[in-house]
């Protein structure tokens, strides 16, 4: 009897130890993943305010050294960044507003069972996810519509993203009780009114998620500027970033490579680059914590397939 108990205890102990080891290993791996993501981002921050000679010789690793804000002062002097910033804010705000204005009502309509054309329209929308005209026919269409080199090319085309539409539709279908509409309709409530004063207030989570998706897509949009815009005054931030980060046109006067002052300029070029990465990503990082709690929800609804 005692022996059995002892054996059981030993087994339990062994299992506890195994569990403990398991937890420790899981934790260690997770910590490693955490650091591999956080460290590069942290490094950019400290590199942007450290002496760039020390950064480029590898002496800045954990704490910033010889703090200087030269990079940032250079960035704030750069007219290109201000123009790009202004354009991108305009395109993002206006574009996201149009996106939501077009997507949410459509998603609501497609969630209504009594809307007879819903299956056909849904099918026609989903087809576009898998099949499209391709770059050249789209480019020629924009040309024919005289959208090339205008700000509207950032806002109107593709203002309805079918993935987001499906997410919103699934949410309306699954989370808004059917009885609500019946009750409202009984009191003579129209679809417009029902959507505006019942559905939308109940859908804050999904509006935030989809709004964030659209917002980030506009903010990070590089493709549209590259293909459809020639004028420098209309270029969004991402194109300016490309010039600075990748084409090495760090200083607007054209210095930065070669020449007598080239070496001096090159030394600071990296600091400007680190700073520009931060300045351009900051707005996204600022809205991120507020919307983060909705992510799981948004993706989960989206996975309830349409």
């Amino acid at each position, binding site marked *: 009897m005692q022996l059995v108990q002892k054996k059981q205890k030993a087994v339990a102990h062994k299992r506890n130890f195994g569990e403990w080891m398991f937890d420790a290993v*899981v934790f260690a791996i997770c910590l490693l993943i*955490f650091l591999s993501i956080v460290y590069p981002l942290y490094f950019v921050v400290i590199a942007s305010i450290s002496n760039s000679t020390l950064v480029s010789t590898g002496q800045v690793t954990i704490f910033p050294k010889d703090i200087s804000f030269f990079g940032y002062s250079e960035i704030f002097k750069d007219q290109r960044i201000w123009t790009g910033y202004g354009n991108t804010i305009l395109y993002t705000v206006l574009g996201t507003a149009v996106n939501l204005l077009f997507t949410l009502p459509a998603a609501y309509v497609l969630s209504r069972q009594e809307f007879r054309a819903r299956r056909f329209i849904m099918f026609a929308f989903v087809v576009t996810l898998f099949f499209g*005209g391709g770059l050249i026919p789209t480019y020629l269409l924009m040309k*024919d519509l005289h959208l090339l080199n205008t700000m509207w090319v950032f806002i109107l085309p593709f203002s309805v993203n079918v993935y987001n539409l499906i997410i919103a539709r699934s949410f309306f279908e699954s989370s808004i009780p059917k009885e609500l509409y019946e009750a409202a*309709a*009984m009191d003579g409530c129209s679809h417009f009114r029902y959507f505006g004063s019942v559905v939308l207030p109940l859908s804050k989570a999904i509006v935030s998620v989809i709004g964030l998706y659209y917002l980030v897509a506009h903010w990070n949009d*590089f493709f549209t500027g590259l293909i459809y815009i020639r004028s420098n005054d209309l270029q969004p931030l991402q194109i300016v970033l490309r010039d600075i980060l990748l084409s090495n046109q760090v200083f607007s006067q054209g210095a930065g490579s070669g020449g007598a002052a080239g070496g001096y300029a090159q030394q600071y070029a990296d600091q400007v680059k680190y700073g520009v990465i931060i300045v351009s990503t900051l707005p996204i990082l600022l809205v991120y914590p507020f919307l983060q709690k909705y992510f799981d929800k948004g993706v989960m609804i989206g996975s309830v397939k349409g």
Partner: protein
Amino acid sequence: MVPKNPYEHPVNLRAYKKKKPTVLNTFVRDYQLWIMILPAIVVIFIFNYIPMYGIQLAFRDYNFAKGLTGGEWRGLFYFKQFFESYQFADLMKNTIVISLSTVVLSFPAPIILALLINQLRWKRAKKALQTTVYLPHFISIVVMVGLLNVLLSPNSGVIGHLLQSIGLGNVNLLGSTSTFVPVYVLSEIWQHCGWNSIIYLAALSTVDPQLYDASKIDGASRWQTIRNIEIPALIPTIIILFVLSMGSVLSTGFEKIFLMQNSLNLPVSEVISTYVYKIGIVSNQFSYSAAIGLFNTLINFFFLYTMNLVARKTSETSLW
């Protein structure tokens, strides 16, 4: 879907009593719904369907005076030109190598990450890890490639220094034909693995808690729980996402590759989408590049269709 009970829609009782509802005779009743969906229909029609009509450009010459449909019919001429061009083999090889290695390596990563996060017992740490791993997804591609450039630089980058200190020498990771694909794939995983794990985490959260209890009573170890409960719970999600990812096997991310290209890595980094851009938008050979683009789309569609067929035959889970 015809509502069986007309009383489900009390307001429109009369419309239902008369005859079976069709799109036409519900048009008046649903006019508000039509108004609400109209902008979406117009936008999708103009910007998605009209370009499909423009695909015929791949079979025609482009006539600058008469526009898209005015040119002479050339049949498969431009396709032939592409298949016979000296770049065809390289483009196909590069596209397939990049996209296959991306799918093969970056597909399992979020699954493993989700299982790991799910095993993490300390709630605070779990939350912190999730917040962190989602974050890189929101970095723009330009900034991402910029980050790679400054961090991987062999002279001044922190990772460049690190590689030197462990004796991997002075490799220009972004300017060499042998390291381009690994850098591309790894940075892709770094950026999107966390975000893609959300959907698996969501699937894991729907596992019936009774299953966990039962396995505990049966004395299953944590590892056995993962293998016998959690992975089977993920299978349907895995299949759907895998089929979807096969559908874009040949549409490698244009923007990232385009931005990572330089004269040193061009032999391995020129892919169909970047080639279409250069031929079409930069050198204005519209018909030729439309043909290449169409070829690309068709191959993608073929992959999607076949994979879906396989999935349906073998597992009863499929897209349609």
